């Protein structure tokens, strides 16, 4: 298999609202930053792929205008997934594996402030039997949290601890939206309190991939993708064990995550309780540094959050702070779909 690496990553400062910016305006600085970091220009990129959602934007074909920001002239080889940008990165990785391109630009963005994101996400549910009841994303996560507590896998103080750790770590992350001491707050939906839930915010992220020697040319210490896989579970919550994540475990196994110990894990867990599920599925013990960026509890620009996990893990490798890292992204209610990437840095010369 061809060696492909992440060579650059950029993200916005994530904010509660960005009324004064269009999606293109929010995205363009990030695209410029990630290109500047490699010295590449749009015309040098072999393949471009993005992730976003029309439902967040509130209009059909919302991604077409973002493409204008990329500057797709002369015409470019380009695609789009209506998913988190982590899956756009997966599509780009596959494209590079075919040998049809040596470099790829991947980006994702989302403005949750445009609508009520809890309501918007209900439109992901079975449109005939479930969506008409409008069960919102926090309520569904609360079902999962209660199932974990009932199973003895965690309790409310432990959840509070995970949330506090995330926000404390986020103080070192200049892009994070929520950081430092965040009050535990009242119950939003029992047993989840304000501190157990992600902030609502707007943001964008971009990554550049490169194959083989091209990656070494563009980056001092590329984050090599040693494996990447994603798996989906049944949609209905009634047929899943919400305390487990077999799709995460399988994706990790296929990505080679269990072959050797990872030192860092960036987990896409918008709710503190979901970190419990993911740690169990991935066999992460206390020695693994989990979400040094603060994770999704510190910034959750929906559709970009998963890509940011991969970008944060890669950036840590590029900076020499990690040698082998796991990055995880999720989609759908209660961790229905999960992606795992394993990244490695070469030994320092």
């Amino acid at each position, binding site marked *: 298999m061809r060696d492909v690496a992440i060579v650059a990553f950029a993200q916005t400062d994530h904010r509660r609202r960005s009324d004064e910016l269009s999606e293109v305006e929010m995205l363009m600085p990030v695209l410029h930053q990630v290109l500047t970091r490699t010295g590449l220009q749009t015309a040098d990129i072999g393949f471009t792929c993005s992730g976003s959602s029309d*439902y967040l934007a509130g209009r059909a074909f919302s991604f077409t205008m973002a493409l204008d920001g990329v500057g797709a002239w002369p015409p470019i080889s380009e695609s789009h997934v209506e998913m988190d940008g982590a899956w756009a990165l997966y599509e780009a990785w596959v494209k590079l594996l075919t040998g049809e391109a040596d470099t790829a630009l991947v980006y994702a963005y989302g403005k949750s402030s445009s609508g009520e994101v809890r309501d918007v996400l209900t439109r992901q549910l079975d449109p005939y039997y479930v969506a008409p009841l409008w069960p919102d994303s926090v309520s569904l996560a609360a079902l999962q949290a209660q199932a974990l507590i009932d199973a003895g896998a965690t309790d409310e103080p432990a959840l509070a601890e995970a949330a506090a750790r995330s926000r404390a770590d986020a103080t070192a992350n200049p892009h994070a939206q929520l950081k430092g001491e965040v009050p535990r707050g009242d119950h939003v939906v029992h047993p989840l309190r304000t501190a157990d839930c992600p902030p609502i915010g707007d943001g964008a992220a971009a990554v550049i991939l490169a194959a083989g020697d091209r990656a070494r040319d563009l980056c001092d210490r590329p984050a090599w993708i040693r494996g990447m896989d994603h798996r989906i579970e049944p949609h209905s919550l009634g047929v899943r064990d919400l305390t487990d994540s077999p799709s995460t475990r399988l994706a990790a196994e296929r990505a080679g995550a269990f072959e050797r110990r990872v030192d860092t894990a960036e987990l896409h867990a918008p709710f503190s309780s979901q970190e419990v599920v993911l740690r169990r599925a991935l066999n992460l013990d206390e020695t693994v540094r989990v979400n040094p960026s603060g994770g999704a509890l510190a910034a959750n620009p929906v559709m970009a959050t998963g890509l940011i996990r991969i970008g944060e893990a890669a950036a840590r490798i590029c900076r020499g702070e990690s040698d082998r890292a796991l990055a995880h992204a999720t989609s759908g209610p209660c961790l229905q779909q999960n992606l795992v990437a394993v990244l490695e840095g070469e030994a320092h010369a």
Partner: protein
Amino acid sequence: MRKEPVAVIGIGQTKHVAARRDVSIAGLVREAARRALDDAELSWADIDAVVIGKAPDFFEGLMMPELYLADALGAVGKPMLRVHTAGSVGGSTALVAANLVASRVHGTVLTLAFEKQSESNAMWGLSLPIPFQQPLLAGAGGFFAPHIRAYMRRTGAPDTVGSLVAYKDRRNALKNPYAHLHEHGITLEKVQASPMLWDPIRYSETCPSSDGACAMVLTDRAGAARSPHPPAWVHGGAMRSEPTLFAGKDFVSPQAGKDCAADVYRQAGITDPRREIDAVEMYVPFSWYEPMWLENLGFSAEGEGWKLTESGVTELDGDLPVNPSGGVLSTNPIGASGMIRFAEAALQVRGQAGEHQVEGARRALGHAYGGGSQFFSMWLVGAESPAI
């Protein structure tokens, strides 16, 4: 590093109609997927991954439908990707699936595209008002009509060419059991007498709104060797995009379309598409796009596409049949329309197109476009496996 050759070994479509009130969205997609699996004589367990595409989520009012459809498409425990590249999505989805095989990430992949337009109203879905942006001007026809006028002015094409295309495609559709429109009494005079919608586009020169799905099973060389029916081999595939609106854009013949075709021909070793390609399934939602794309795809010199149409070259019994299936003009479940073009091209080179089979078709082009003539995806399939 050599790519793995990719073969199409299963194709399934639903009978496309205005409204499938008898099935849910899940029921619709499963029908097409089941037919593709039956064609390949495979079961759900033989599929390693699923790649699904459709046009905007607002068309059904369902956000990220891959989540809800995972069970119906046998994807549980497997990778599932959702592609969305506007009207070209059906083609792009097939290409993403083909790359999973070409890169050897997976051996056998199910790819599917659908639209159940009766769940909602596509015109409304396209017309949500956004500040500071040009509205689509009363649906897609309003957007494309001025570009057709520009083509007529630029080439001097007589204003009868559009109706010839519509008359041909609707007659071809009569030979395709899956086509939506079966207009048995169709005549050229009826097309020409139909109401003018967006001058110069008449009612009978536009595509219908359909419910429908199309699925394909793609596999590697080993999978193709086990195939019970002749496979179609992918000889080339590409996507190209350019911005929607900018001063240098040629809406009549976009550069992205030319570049995309050139890339596909290079991969497939095609130097003279007019002579070397036996059938074309082209994305023609408004009849005038046939002569326009004939030029854009390199089948004729610039300004000459309408002459091919007028002389009957693109008829089912002409020497470059275009849209033997009846095309988008006869069947338009938007998100699936591109994949239907790709699948119909594959049916032709497998010799399985039934009454609308082009005799002796060995190489066929599937073509799709989307946005404001902004996104292009194409593949060229052949009866022979590609040279190693």
